[in-house]
């Protein structure tokens, strides 16, 4: 089981080298973490974009432009389409977002015909390495789906479970969060959480435990849960927090980063191949962890 970001980096190091496509590569040539990953030997980069800019950037980073493949293309949209063709054609393993705005990039990547959409729903998992815990914790969906329906929440759960397995968490403990820990028809997320919990009880997600609805204090603290009369093996031991909507997910992730100071790396799930997107709450130093996670997810 991978317990922290260092474990993730170590695991990536043991994987075979992957081909990662930065697209569109843009004038700055992607984040510094990409070059760190190259130096670590995890990935071989391919740049799709303006050749002269890529040449210049590589020289500035201390590499030779001849060391890596550069595909010259000026049109940003074509850059992305070329990258998607490469991974579908098994000529590359990972796609990394370059200089294109998030909505357009995701529209192309998540297109069901020409993109890499594989599952029913794409979702974003924020992974945290809390200094006070001896394990990783995850929050999902923290970026993609505004107000997921129960059908979408089922897929979001499945996506997170898949990631948990890659991290070596055999039987993930999942808290389906809501505003309160009681089922209340006036708060639909309590009903969704109860459904997910019951589905897990009937083994519809395999070897996982889902408790819900839980409010956050019951989820994070076993003592608080006992005070509220909630008895569960999940409370105080949560691996994955399922949030009711994206406002709760994205803002919780932001507080965790900026006020709690917890290192975060994010993963887009639901695609056939790993795709690294730009979410502003990942620090430059943790972008390397996102690349490591993509390496681990590749081929799984």
């Amino acid at each position, binding site marked *: 089981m991978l317990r922290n970001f260092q474990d993730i980096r170590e695991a990536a190091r043991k994987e075979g080298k992957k081909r990662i496509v930065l697209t569109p590569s843009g004038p700055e040539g992607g984040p510094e973490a990409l070059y760190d990953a190259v130096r670590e030997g995890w990935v071989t980069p391919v740049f799709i974009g303006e050749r002269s800019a890529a040449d210049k950037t590589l020289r500035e980073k201390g590499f030779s432009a001849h060391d890596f493949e550069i595909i010259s293309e000026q049109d940003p949209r074509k850059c992305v389409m070329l990258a998607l063709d490469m991974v579908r054609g098994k000529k590359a393993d990972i796609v990394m977002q370059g200089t294109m705005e998030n909505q357009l990039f995701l529209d192309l990547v998540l297109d069901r015909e020409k993109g890499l959409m594989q599952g029913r729903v794409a979702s974003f998992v924020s992974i945290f390495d809390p200094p006070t815990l001896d394990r990783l914790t995850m929050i999902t969906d923290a*970026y993609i789906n505004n107000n997921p329906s129960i059908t979408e929440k089922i897929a979001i759960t499945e996506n997170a479970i898949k990631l948990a397995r890659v991290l070596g968490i055999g039987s993930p403990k999942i808290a389906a969060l809501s*505003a309160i820990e009681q089922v209340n028809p006036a708060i639909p997320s309590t009903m969704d959480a109860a459904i997910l919990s019951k589905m897990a009880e009937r083994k519809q997600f395999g070897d996982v435990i889902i408790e819900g609805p839980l409010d*956050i204090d019951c989820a994070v603290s076993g003592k608080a849960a006992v005070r509220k009369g909630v008895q569960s093996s999940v409370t105080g031991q949560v691996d994955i927090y399922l949030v*009711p909507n994206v406002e709760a997910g994205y803002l919780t992730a932001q507080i965790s980063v*900026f006020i709690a100071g917890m290192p975060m790396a994010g993963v887009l799930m639901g695609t056939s191949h790993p795709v690294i997107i730009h979410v502003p709450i990942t620090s430059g130093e943790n972008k390397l962890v996102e690349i490591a996670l993509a390496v681990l997810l590749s081929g799984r």
Partner: protein
Amino acid sequence: MIRTFEDLDRLAPDKGPKKFIVLAPEDEEFMLAVKHSWQRGYIEPVLIGSREKIERLAGHVEFDIAPFEKIFESDRQGIANLGISMLFSGDVDMAGKGQIPTAFIYRSIIREESKVRKGTMVSVISLWDIAGLGHLTSLTDTGVNINPDFESKTEILKNAVFLFHLLGYPKPRISVLSGQREIGGTLESYRDFTRLRETAQKGDLGSCEVIEATSFTEIFLPGRKVFSRFSEIDIGKTDFPEIILMPNLSTGNILVKLDFVIPRVRRRSLVMTSRGPVIIPSRSDFHDAITGEIALGVVTADRVRKA
């Protein structure tokens, strides 16, 4: 200006003892908090609830309740109605929730507010004392309104602005929080931000300012889309607002209790009625946290009376 919870704790004995009606103190942690608050001179308690439970729990925590007024009542809504009516009639200065469903108390407050024709919307304001910030901040509404619309958010903000004026902040800054991001279209909470900003500029929320930032990312990284290292993050150097409006209850309830996992954050919550504070501890709070909330109630009760 009250900048920290320590400021509140220092002021509470001077402003006390306030008459504090305790709605169903039928839990050991809550009874212990009442005992400590009385010992510190914050309050003179009035205990209302089940006789058997009150006497048993007082015995457990070795609290001699003989000198205090007690009202024995077992019906939960009856307890809430009586306690809140005593707050509105001025018989007590403040009220506090013990082991009683919060909805019962909200119902009683709404009833009393309508009687005095104030029509104040019930909303929970959770103060946060964040180490290194240098002033108090708050999250609201963290307890009542499931999906507040623009009109409700206007009322929620008026309550919070009123509280911050009482705490000595002449022009509190407000962030209308939203999950708005680079994808997913325009969220309702972001539309509300635009309208609330105009409302504040017209002066309809009282003296306050709605700031540009609608997320913690924008508060911490104004005008930037990336950051390199955690060492760049310093809350003391941010334009961190005093009031943070939650987009919905789920978000508010999750964010506000993150103090469970963020050691630098402490929380105290209350409902501001037009006649005084009602403290609303979470059922998972322990006695130290509840005692702190009582101190907050004492100071605000004192200032409400003077206002």
